[in-house]
């Protein structure tokens, strides 16, 4: 990916220097902050430098990455999180924000980003976004979580590229990390958290 972080890293490598740092792009509802930290520093320390308040959960590795409980990754070094952090894009979920709602919006964004070349991606990501959207907005139907898993299984590894694989990987981690929120949506229609979180890149409907 030719983002600024990658190109900066290539320049460093070309100069013969050893890579001892990681560039991280912290993404919050109010904007993005790029920080460069030593590979031995923790994710929590990097977040503090970026001025990001301690979140409840975090999406590591971009929209095709994986959700983690903040407490399970915050004290780990950037080096040990390497392959999970991937390109260094970190979406932090504020404590007052609903993870199911954010997941629905990320899924919608990924569906809209489909190159529309392969059926399972073109139709599958849209179906996943539809189901996740109604679950997150309290209109979920019986069996919707199983339905999400079943649709995801029909999408995984079926595209000519790995865009849909990233989407189902992100979804699988969301179903795990936000299991309690999702259960609340099912029982009470709402989790009590905010649903107005804007996902960067999102196209207004």
């Amino acid at each position, binding site marked *: 990916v030719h983002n600024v972080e990658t190109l900066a890293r290539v320049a460093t490598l070309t100069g013969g220097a050893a890579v001892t740092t990681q560039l991280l792009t912290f993404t919050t509802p109010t904007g993005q902050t790029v920080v460069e930290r030593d590979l031995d520093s923790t994710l929590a320390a990097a977040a503090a430098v970026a001025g990001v308040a301690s979140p409840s959960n975090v999406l590591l590795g971009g929209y095709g990455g994986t959700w983690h409980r903040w407490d399970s990754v915050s004290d780990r070094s950037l080096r040990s999180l390497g392959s999970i952090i991937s390109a260094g894009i970190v979406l932090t979920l504020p404590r007052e924000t609903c993870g199911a709602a954010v997941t629905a919006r990320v899924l919608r964004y990924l569906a809209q980003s489909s190159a529309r*070349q*392969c059926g*399972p991606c073109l*139709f599958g990501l849209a179906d996943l976004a539809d189901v996740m959207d109604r679950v997150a907005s309290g209109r979920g139907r019986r069996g919707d979580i199983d339905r999400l898993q079943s649709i995801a299984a*029909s999408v995984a590894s*079926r595209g*000519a590229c790995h865009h849909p694989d990233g989407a189902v990987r992100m979804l699988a981690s969301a179903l795990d990390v936000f299991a309690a929120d999702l259960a609340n949506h099912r029982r009470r229609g709402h989790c009590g958290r905010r649903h107005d979180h804007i996902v960067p890149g999102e196209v207004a409907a």
Partner: protein
Amino acid sequence: VTSLELDAARCDGVGMCLLVAPDLVTLDRWGFPVIEEADDARGLRQAKAAARACPHRALRLAGDQAAGSLVQRT
């Protein structure tokens, strides 16, 4: 083992493969093919027929038989 290689970006879900290769092809919930393997002459016949029948040439023979002199249209 005979199988079919699917170019998912070419496939539009027309469904000719299901008609000519019912032992090798099932359709997913959107009508796009999921390919199974076969290891008999009947499977090979069906695989060749499916590769020929696809209007978008999204299927080609894969597996042991693909390297031989068999009809392989890509």
